[in-house]
């Protein structure tokens, strides 16, 4: 994925790839949990804004995880 893609998108996609070994529902929860525990509030807010505006570059698991962070 291009470095022009925002860091939050690149990061959550690679987190989703890592948790790809889990069933989808568990993966969504694991990605959301990781972001909740380890991301700065500014990055969480920016992620939600990015997800709200465009999900083309996002892994579906990442989109669903972002939904749990609202």
């Amino acid at each position, binding site marked *: 994925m291009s470095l022009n893609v925002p860091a939050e998108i690149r990061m959550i996609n*690679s987190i989703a*790839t890592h948790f790809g070994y889990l069933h989808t529902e568990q993966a969504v929860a694991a990605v959301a949990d990781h972001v909740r525990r*380890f991301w*700065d509030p500014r990055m969480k807010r920016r992620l939600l804004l990015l997800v709200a505006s465009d999900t083309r570059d996002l892994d579906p698991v990442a989109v669903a995880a972002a939904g749990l962070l609202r």
Partner: protein
Amino acid sequence: MLLPEPGLRIPNMFDAAIEGTFRGLFVHGEDIAQSDPNVQHVLAALGAMELVVVQDLFINETAKFAHVFLPGASFLEKDGTFTNAERRINRVRAVMKPKNGMHEWDIVCRIATAMGYPMRYDHPGQIMDEIAALTPTFAGVSFERLDEVGSIQWPCDDDAPQGTPIMHVDAFTRGLGRFVPTPFVPTDERSTRRYPLILTTGRILSQYNVGAQTRRTANIAWHQEDLLEIHPHDAEDRGITDGDEVTLASRVGRTKLRAKVSDRMPTGVVYTTFHYPVTGANVVTTENSDWATNCPEYKVTAVQVALAHPVIRELDERAVDNVLAAELVD
């Protein structure tokens, strides 16, 4: 007061600085303007901040962006502890007074106090006492105890007053171990026609990290410059011979250094160290990082290498791009 939320990691601090939401940084004993990937991005971030404070032994590359520079102290001037990779806490004792007239910790305490958070200690042993009071695995550690036994491996507490040479002998902290799959998460970095080689960077024994300390010693006799190691086949394809000056370019930047033709590298892979700011190997490395900790991906950067003809050096960046593109077509 410390906020309960996690903070930004270093690469994310740079992004936030450029966005304008991260405005100040206190850098203590680290040279991020040379050590971190995509140096141009780092420099843009440092330039965007309202306040950069650097405390270091030397005027390093980061210090050039500092609004305030505070003198650091060498280990010979320090009274405290070092904890090594086997969790062993050792005392270090000063053999001379700090040349700058003040202990590093005292400088930090004075700044904190001036900013409204009083930090007053008479001796670094009191700081260790505070660490022991707040950190369960250090609960039994103190300067007095270290002076008595020499060194201690944490965890050191009521259950293990002598420290813990081997951890998890009978069980893990959580009880039984838990196996977790760690699937391979491939990098997004790809070699292309424009950038067909993979650059990996590393260290050499005689220099330490960015060389801020070791470049100022006689160690430079062993390693006077960063060299680009390239396989003979890759060198021949590009008309490069041993000792030639070459350009090293990636998607984020370019630099120049001398080539060392060597079969230590496989074809398709080139290698260099990052000890000299004049080379600035991290000018070409990217912000790609691992999923869990955002540790930069210093080992995989798609690059192109070309002879740095004298004529190229006199051209502007766009012209250099054109020359490189023409060479690729050739």
